[in-house]
């Protein structure tokens, strides 16, 4: 299964490296969202700083939606799904591979966004360890749920509109916990963020496990 996961993740990352859709479209989109949040909340630095953690994670969530749609589109175009099924790869491995590729792209995006958000929202980055751990755990959860719902909505004609409706409510706890952990780190109270890290870890483990088990039946449906 792990070998299959590496193969699938490598394939997705290679596609991204050659097409650069994430880099040329998703990252700029996320930057636009960061700017718009700034406009919506006004130039008051104090208010922006107070909201920075939440704005960052909502931006990540919006960008994540695009990344998931891209990850699904790669499979639905040219009957890639049938190719995956014919390849004999383990369904759990396919899930882990696709989720890992998605998570890796999101992590790169988060690093870029964090730097830009720190500049735009006048928020010096502190508690780097907690920030990094939060990013890793929250991204694992987002990628797992995103890949799962991407597969659920993949075969349908309404997937662009259906996916966010299914995806966003489920990851609401991730946004909440990641925002709290970030706020704790940025306000130099890293200890207060550890509990939220635990919650993120539980969420991620639960949904990676569920996705690995449930992906087989979903893939069969075509």
């Amino acid at each position, binding site marked *: 299964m792990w070998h299959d996961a590496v193969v699938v993740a490598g394939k997705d990352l290679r596609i991204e490296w050659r097409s650069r859709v994430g880099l040329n479209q998703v990252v700029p989109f996320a930057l636009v969202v960061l700017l718009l949040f700034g406009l919506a909340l006004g130039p008051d630095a104090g208010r922006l700083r107070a909201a920075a953690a939440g704005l960052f994670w909502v931006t990540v969530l919006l960008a994540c939606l695009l990344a998931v749609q891209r990850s699904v589109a790669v499979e639905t175009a040219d009957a890639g799904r049938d190719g995956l099924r014919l390849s004999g790869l383990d369904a759990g491995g396919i899930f882990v591979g696709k989720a890992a590729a998605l998570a890796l792209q999101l992590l790169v995006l988060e690093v870029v966004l964090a730097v830009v958000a720190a500049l735009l929202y006048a928020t010096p980055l502190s508690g780097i360890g907690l920030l990094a751990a939060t990013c890793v755990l929250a991204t694992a959860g987002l990628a797992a749920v995103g890949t799962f719902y991407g597969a659920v909505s993949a075969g349908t004609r309404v997937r662009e509109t259906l996916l966010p409706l299914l995806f966003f*409510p489920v990851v609401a706890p991730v946004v909440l916990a990641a925002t709290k952990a970030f706020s704790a780190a940025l306000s130099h109270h890293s200890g207060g963020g550890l509990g939220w890290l635990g919650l993120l870890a539980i969420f991620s483990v639960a949904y990676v496990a569920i996705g690995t088990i449930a992906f087989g039946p979903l893939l069969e449906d075509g």
Partner: protein
Amino acid sequence: MSALVPPVDHGLFGEGARSDAAAASRQRRAQLALRVVGVTGLLGVVLTVWLGLWVTPPDAYMGNLVRLLYIHPSMAWDAFLAYGVSFLASACYLWPRTRDLRFDRLAGASAEAGVVFTAITLVTGSLWGRPTWGTWWVWDPLLTTTALLFVLYLGYLALRKVPGDPEVRAKRTAVGALVAFIDVPIVYFSVTWWKSLHQAPTISPGKSDVHGLMAWTMLLSFVAFSLVYVWFVAHRYRLAGLQAREEAEGLALALAERRAEGAASAVEENEVWT
């Protein structure tokens, strides 16, 4: 031609296509039982309204607001009951030994009722919150969880509406329902914690004891609205069965009609040209 039509269960509780006398009488009995449930439930609701609005006294602290007690908690109970049934039915569908499209229909019917009851819960809760807390909405853990539950299951219903092969759709929605259901405790826990870190719990609802006629009215509302729930779901379930049957047989019927039409027009053409 008929070989192409997959076997579908007919009737109220899926008694197979062989509508022999026993099945017919069973169906009649089921219909009668359902009617009894419906009429009893509606009578109970009427009685609750009468007791709740006219007979019971206003509360010493909350005044007439207390009358929301006869609808709001029972709606919330119905909503959670509905989601519980939907979850169990989805699990039954996914379990290979009990895999049956009837469970899929039950899950869908119950979730639909659940969303309606959740909406009523949120609206009545908000109506109560405005005069009591001074605002239509507070970020109370229970409220926030209920609101997220509402959107979660709206998504589930949207997923159910997606056209496709019934078996595929059933499996997809059952998995979706399980994943959504698992999220509920996580959401509740995280929102509770979020609040507890931030500020003291919001003013708790009036602590005045509920007793006597008020308690009985409240109990009656629970029974009445639960019966209404059963009635809703049974009818929605029956309708879903009919829809599935229409989907399965509709095409065959349309083809047959079209053929008959074609044959008739061919005859006409022959008559014209010969």
